[in-house]
């Protein structure tokens, strides 16, 4: 009886072994084929797409074209839309609540002083993306014993609403932005190892 089942059991064991080996190879192939810079690029694409869509299809359309509702930095008190920068910041806080990924807006001409560059990497990154807006500035950085992959991408004025707000805001240190100008950068950071 036992001999009768031996080949079947052998086949099942072999299949299991092959499955385990296959999964391990798939894992190692996945880890080996997605570099941190590409991960950051993908994340940036999502952030940039959401931000541009919100700026043009929500703020620009409802505030500047159809006059339905205004966007205002004190959106709760004024029952208004959040500004695109605030949307990004709220999303970033939500995304970072479970740890790992961090992203934020930074600029030499930040209206919210929280968004001024704070580290040497950020200052160098902003200079680099201002000079070459289509190229991200990337580096590994060790912060308090943790190795992070960090990347800074150029943040451009994607709609007239961006330009209008930054040029007219009393806290803005620069008032001559034009559509398409680099206004600052989006910094993305995540731990280099999980």
């Amino acid at each position: 009886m036992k001999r009768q089942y031996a080949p079947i059991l052998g086949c099942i064991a072999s299949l299991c072994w092959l499955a385990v080996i296959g999964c391990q190879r798939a894992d190692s192939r996945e880890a080996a084929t997605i570099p941190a810079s590409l991960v950051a690029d993908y994340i940036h694409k999502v952030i940039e797409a959401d931000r541009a869509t919100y700026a043009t299809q929500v703020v620009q359309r409802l505030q500047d074209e159809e006059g339905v509702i205004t966007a205002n930095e004190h959106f709760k008190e004024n029952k208004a839309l959040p500004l695109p920068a605030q949307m990004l910041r709220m999303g970033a806080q939500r995304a970072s609540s479970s740890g790992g990924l961090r992203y934020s807006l930074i600029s030499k001409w930040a209206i919210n002083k929280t968004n001024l560059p704070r580290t040497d990497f950020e200052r160098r990154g902003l200079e680099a993306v201002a000079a070459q807006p289509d190229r991200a500035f990337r580096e590994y950085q060790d912060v308090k014993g943790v190795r992070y992959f960090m990347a800074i991408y150029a943040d451009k004025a994607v709609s007239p609403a961006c330009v209008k707000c930054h040029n007219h805001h009393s806290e803005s240190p620069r008032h001559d932005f034009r559509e398409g100008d680099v206004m600052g950068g989006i910094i993305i950071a995540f731990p280099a190892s999980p």
Partner: protein
Amino acid sequence: MSWMRLRTWVFGLALPLLAFGVVAFELERRHFFVPGTTTDGHYLMEASCNSCHSPFAGVSNDRCSRCHRAELDNDTHPPALFDDPRWADDLEKLDVSSCVTCHREHRGPQSAVTVARDFCFACHSDVVERASHRGLAPATCGDAGCHNYHDGSVLRRDNLAAHQNEPDLLASRGVPARAMPGAVSSRAGTRAPDPPAGLAIPNALATAWRKSAHAVSGVNCSSCHERSGRLVMRPGQELCRSCHAFEVDTFLAGKHGLRTRIGLPALRPRDARLAMRPEAVAGPRQLDCAACHDPHSVDTRPAATEACLGCHDDLHSRSFAGSPHARTAATPGGRRPGQQDVTCATCHLPRLELGRAAGHRVAVNHNNTLTLAPPDRMAAMVCGFCHGLEFSLASLLDRGLVENNFSGHPKKGLKTFAMLHPSAAAAVQERQR
């Protein structure tokens, strides 16, 4: 030490101490374990260690936000903001990602902020380089109504500018008109009390009820005093909550209801640190809905002032009767306090317009602690219905005026407005003269 001697020590001293500790803990005598004087804010809940402390894990931000979430709705320095490597160097100087860095407990009754007063300078030392702030001392950021670490919505520059040069007393003033929760019942107007079997009601009680809002809205004797055919002599606040959810929930969020919410015995006047009237301390009163509201007459006028002054006996409370605010409420203006009547409740239980989900109704926030501090919250939520912002802030920052219940004018103007615009500076100088 010999084994016999050690055993004597263990059984003679350590075990009785351990037994005392266990018994004290279990019998809710936990103040024996409090390591120092608790702040006024947390004093009433100090017997509930677990409300703040997690075993072997200290005090987490999550525990703080269980009670303080509403106050931190507009937090400009949320801990989540600093959970980012770009803030690592700043956090080395002052770890503002943790509430307890600045708010250490058991350090004294008034010690809400326990770091040095110049703590802002750990990150904002560049501020004094600005022309507008040159020469200001690092410890003065929070003085004179200038900055609020957690919520800058009132003191931000454009809001101050919008309220600049407002008169002390606004031409158009008054709190929003309050609406009753719920719809008027189809049984309204019948006005025949329907006491459950076995409940005899005195005539005076029936008369009071007939004129009440409860009678108008169809809330009869059986609505509160009968459950599944059984008589309920003293319905609790859970029953009130079935119609007045916002009011009860906000009551439980303030000091008056806090102990009930966390499972401690309800607050009694004798538990308070503030001066209370001797008869209130000696009496059996416990803080629940019925402590201030007579559910039969449902007249909010006694609840708005008399109920408060029936217990509170501090200088501010005792000064109310002779204050200009009391005079506004002295004129009869209907059964309930009118929009321009200023009572204790006007300032300490502010009226709020609830959102669309609540039918845009104006309700009374029963969290009696909400507007106590910081002063800019009281100024915005309450005083601004009748007074200019500068006058409101200057009055709230004048200790003497708070004690005499605002009988007079603030002695000092606000530098905040003076820094805003030269015309405001001139007004401040005029007031000081």
